[in-house]
């Protein structure tokens, strides 16, 4: 039994993603029309009632986020986070390459809800072809009149993972180093160029047209009740079907890996799966019957994050993989706060020491202590999440660490 459920990707392969006319012929921009006819408060209520939660990783209720924007402010911005930098993740690219107008429509719906006339899409520097595609799609939408007076500009990042953090992203649009800001104030109150700003992920925005057309209760009824809707997952590593699927959020990890993913190649056994990108926890076999939704993943000490699913078979050296991951975080730490700057450096140093066979049990204790400090004291999500691959593998795969010690 397959549990795929294409909603955001229902148009995939059927329409030209840049063409507003083809999107409209497939039923597009009706959600925006409906949103514009609604009273602002009713529109906010509809989005809240759908239960839509942020798809970038933090899982915050989208309608509630929009509700923080003070209405009296003369200028407000809608910003789309297309900086997907979590290794193993490419869902936002897939959405843009198949259904770009759903993103534009979703941003315009947000614009209607917070009375904003200007949107920005911050696209990662690795995707210049997506920047071109989006600019064509925006031109096509403007020409068709579908966006009305709502404007969208695309800005390109330049290879900084931390810019996926919303305040770092804002700094980058402003032309600065992409370092996160202290919060509060949150962007909803003081964001881009000090104006109230809503920052949402591509996948979050792309859900909105479908919520408006089909109704909040339709959306709230899909998948897990507390994190409803669909989620696009991207499967990598030791898996037969290295591809992406759109699934309801109550699907279990086991179903994702063994039904949709087709299991492990070469008749090998499963060892671990890392969900949510490189900042996610590693999950052992015993937890595979957990649904992928935000809260269920939390109960096993993991996170849905971006929806990346990295599978490792029994032959993989988990300490080596985590050592490589610790190098990633050392490289991507922006250096603004000490717990992350020094912490990611020390994590990498100790992980490489253990991986080279020069570690001892004291190093494990130091890693766990360092993890706790970073989780509590780092300024942004990067430093807070960076130790989770280390912590979770020590918890579930400690013998592999000990094997590398004398």
């Amino acid at each position: 039994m397959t549990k795929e459920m294409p909603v955001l990707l229902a148009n995939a392969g059927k329409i030209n993603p840049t063409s507003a006319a083809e999107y409209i012929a497939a039923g597009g921009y009706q959600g925006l029309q409906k949103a514009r006819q609604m009273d602002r408060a009713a529109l906010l209520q509809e989005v809240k009632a759908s239960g839509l939660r942020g798809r970038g990783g933090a899982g915050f209720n989208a309608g509630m986020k929009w509700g923080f924007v003070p209405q009296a402010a003369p200028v407000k911005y809608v910003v789309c986070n297309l900086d997907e930098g979590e290794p193993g993740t490419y869902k936002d690219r897939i959405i843009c390459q198949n259904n770009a107008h759903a993103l534009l429509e979703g941003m315009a719906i947000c614009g209607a809800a917070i009375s904003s006339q200007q949107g920005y899409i911050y696209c990662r520097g690795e995707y210049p072809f997506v920047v071109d595609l989006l600019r064509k799609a925006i031109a096509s939408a403007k020409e068709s009149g579908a966006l009305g007076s709502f404007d969208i500009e695309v800005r390109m990042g330049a290879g900084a993972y931390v810019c996926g953090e919303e305040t770092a992203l804002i700094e980058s649009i402003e032309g600065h180093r992409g370092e996160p800001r202290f919060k509060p104030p949150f962007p909803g109150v003081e964001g881009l160029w000090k104006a109230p700003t809503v920052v949402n992920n591509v996948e979050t925005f792309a859900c909105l047209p479908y919520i408006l057309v089909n109704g909040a209760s339709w959306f709230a009824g899909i998948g897990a009740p507390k994190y409803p809707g669909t989620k696009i997952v991207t499967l990598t590593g030791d898996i037969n079907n290295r591809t992406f699927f759109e699934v309801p959020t109550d699907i279990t990890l086991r179903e994702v890996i063994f039904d949709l993913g087709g299991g492990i190649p070469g008749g090998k056994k499963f060892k671990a799966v890392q969900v949510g990108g490189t900042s996610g926890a590693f999950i052992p076999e015993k937890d595979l019957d957990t649904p992928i939704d935000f809260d269920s993943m939390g109960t096993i000490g993991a996170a849905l994050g971006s929806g990346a699913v990295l599978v490792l078979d029994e032959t993989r050296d988990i300490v080596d993989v985590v050592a490589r991951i610790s190098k990633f975080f050392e490289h991507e730490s922006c250096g603004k706060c000490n717990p992350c700057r020094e912490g990611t450096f020390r994590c990498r140093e100790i992980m490489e020491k253990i991986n080279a066979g020069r570690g001892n049990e004291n190093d494990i204790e130091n890693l766990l202590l360092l993890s706790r400090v970073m989780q509590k004291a780092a300024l942004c999500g990067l430093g807070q999440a960076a130790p989770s691959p280390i912590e979770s593998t020590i918890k579930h795969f400690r013998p592999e660490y000990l094997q590398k010690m004398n």
Partner: protein
Amino acid sequence: MADYKEIIKACKDVPGGLIEAYHAIQKEYSYIPEEALLEAAKVFKVSAAQAYGVATFYSYLKVGKRGKNVIRICASAPCHIAGADKVVAALEKELGIKMGQTTADGKFTLEFTECVGQCQATPVITINSTPYGDVTGEKVAAILAEYK
């Protein structure tokens, strides 16, 4: 080749246009010449230190010369376990340079990168941001031939 002064001038009135200007310069030069960075500092009314600070923050921006074609090899976990190290070895052998270096004729530079979002086809390399997936040591020569 377009003059960097013209490129910077064109971005002058774009809010937050400094990074846009850097992108436009790199598109033309494949890197940011030192003097272009100082010019950008003047036009955007920031100190040279700030202009450097922005340019050096981002992995995709490079101050100072590098090759015409920038080859990036993804080193993130999915590519790491798919054998990115073998691709690195093949590229280094084919070009006769080490990671981080530029060929003597100025045609190629080898850089590590983190995830480029093409994980359906690991290991991945990009050449001037065009992705190539499922790369093996054997495929490297044919891919490079397009750029020689």
